[in-house]
């Protein structure tokens, strides 16, 4: 009895130790290929809405677990889910994803300075010098670079408004 216990304990210790050593010895020092893959899934507009300096660092943070897969507002729920799938995270634990936002130009304040559309990474703002600018919502990722570029403070980010075609039923309250 005592022998068996001792043998098993010893085996456990030795094998565990070996595993620990192996994980150090064969640790991958290369750039994690996963980071590259995750980066390719991100929108790539380097908008920084996640609080990180761009999609590259965001991908790294997401892979390392320091940023949540739900951190990307332009990507929304869809991106959060595909990231979760990629990284083997249980979808049901995600919680609410950041909501996609759209830039809105206040027509009364806009002076037509053209700075916002130069800043826009997706060419989603149209206009000409001294003319009112306007956001093409289909192309806007809500990256907020125009907000920073606007000298008049007349651009704001707003959650997309629902229409009859985008509205859908909410989930029923659980029984």
């Amino acid at each position, binding site marked *: 009895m005592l022998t068996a216990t001792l043998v098993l304990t010893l085996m456990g210790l030795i094998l565990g130790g070996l595993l620990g050593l192996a994980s150090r010895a064969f640790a991958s020092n290369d750039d994690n290929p996963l980071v590259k893959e995750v980066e390719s899934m991100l929108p790539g507009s380097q908008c920084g809405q996640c609080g990180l300096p761009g999609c590259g660092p965001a991908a790294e943070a997401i892979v390392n677990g320091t940023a949540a897969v739900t951190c990307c507002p332009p*990507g*929304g729920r*869809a991106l959060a889910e595909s990231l979760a799938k990629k990284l083997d995270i249980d979808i049901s634990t995600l919680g609410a994803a950041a909501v*996609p936002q759209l830039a809105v130009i206040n027509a009364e304040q806009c002076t037509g300075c053209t700075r916002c559309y130069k800043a826009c990474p*997706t*060419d*989603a703002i149209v206009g000409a010098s001294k003319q009112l600018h306007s956001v093409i919502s289909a192309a806007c990722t809500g990256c907020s670079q125009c907000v920073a570029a606007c000298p008049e403070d007349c651009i704001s980010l707003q959650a997309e408004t629902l229409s*009859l075609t985008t509205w859908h*039923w909410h*989930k029923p309250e659980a029984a």
Partner: protein
Amino acid sequence: MFAPRLFGSGKIRGGVHPDGRKDATSDRPILTNLPLPSRLYVPLNQHSGDDALPLVRPGDRVLKGQLIGKASGRVSASIHAPTSGTVLAIEAVTMPHPSGLPAMAVIIEPDGDDRWIEIPTPPDPFSLDPDVLASKVEEAGVVGMGGAIFPAAIKLRQGRRFEIQTLIINGSECEPFLTTDDRLMQERADEIVEGTRLIRKIIEAYRAVIAIEDNKPAAIAAIQAAANKVGAIEVMVVPAHYPMGSAKQLIQAVTGLEVPAGKRSNDIGVLVHNVATAWAIQQALVYGKPLLSRVTTVAGACVAQPQNVEVLFGTPIEHVFKVCGGLTGVPARLLMGGPMMGQILPSLDVPIIKGSSGVLALSKAEVNAHTSSPCIRCARCVDACPMGLVPLEMARNSRADKLDAAQEFGLRDCILCGSCAYVCPSHIPLVQYFEYAKGELADRRSSQQKQEYTKGLIDARKERLEQERLAKEAAKAAKEAAKAAKDAARAAAKAEKEAAQAKTQHPESTTTSPADNCVREEQP
């Protein structure tokens, strides 16, 4: 080529037998010529697809039947003024939709004359080319009146591209309470049969079958009599069995075929139109009348005089109830459509639209709602599903947001008929889970598409900036080269000849595109 069976068994899978409650309205004639409401709110989108473009401005006088909204986009339908009067505004009004969200509508104040725009007497439609007929249906703004509200002309044109063996005219009004198709068949059988013949002519179908549920004997007799007069139109009696009126189920009952998943009925040589659509097409082709009104069942225990009424589009529902004696109590549910698939109305202030087959004010007893309790896996929903799906697993996965799994268990094929929720002893709102999951999936698809689109834009912009930079560099180099060449030439000229004859040339025309400016500003 597979040989389709001439007749189906008349049977469908699963399904339920809800209490019909049609007696209150099925024997009463359709009330026509309603008093005009003080305002008509005519939405510019009463169909599936894009909004119609308004052709009128506030203050314009319009005549009955005048085109006020032009179909625009790939899938759309025209909108006509339902009566004569003045356009007050074109603005957002609350739509008959559970969200209570607004959409653009032309608000018309009727002048009371109900004066028609001049309609030239159309030529005999049977002498016209099918494509011309389809265009006339399109001009009349006819959409599928059974609930799908898909523009009828598009469906007809699609049908023309396929070899259609069987045209089914759907008279299987399977929703409880609703009797609009029933009454229409009883009162306007000749028109429906003529409309059927016209549709058949347009799509060149081999057979035309008018399929009617066996709980409508008067309609069957009327249609049979009308069909006997002209011949070549078959009348098929199918069992009253919800959801027999769903196109997929009716096709199965009539032809014995199933529409392959993700395909259209065209693919198996079948086309289904509703009897009310057949009537509207007949009106459009024989009399040149655009679609301005429809027959709607007004019923439910809270309606004083339940009956079918022919209502102009844009009529507020409150007005419709008033015509039927008003509401006798506070309804437990206020619906547009039938109780199985109809939608809750946000208020009485919403207009009747082309898809309004009924407006119901149901009492508590008629709805029989209860708070839901956990699923006991009794599988009654599995037995009731006419599509052969597993609703309990679909709901469980939708609830956990495991949408892929929900799709696998059948969400992708679900027709939202409500049979499962109707029989659920735990009163689980299964359909709402499916609506939620389908909506989420649509959201994800569209945000995925947007992501791909904006990614493309970013790449395109990067490429453009890079090209502009290269172009600028090239221009700079060219300028320098030209300058050098000019200097050299000048020196050479100086050297060759003392008498200077200088010809100056601009080497380049300057570009002034804003994008170029932008590059210049960005690169100090």
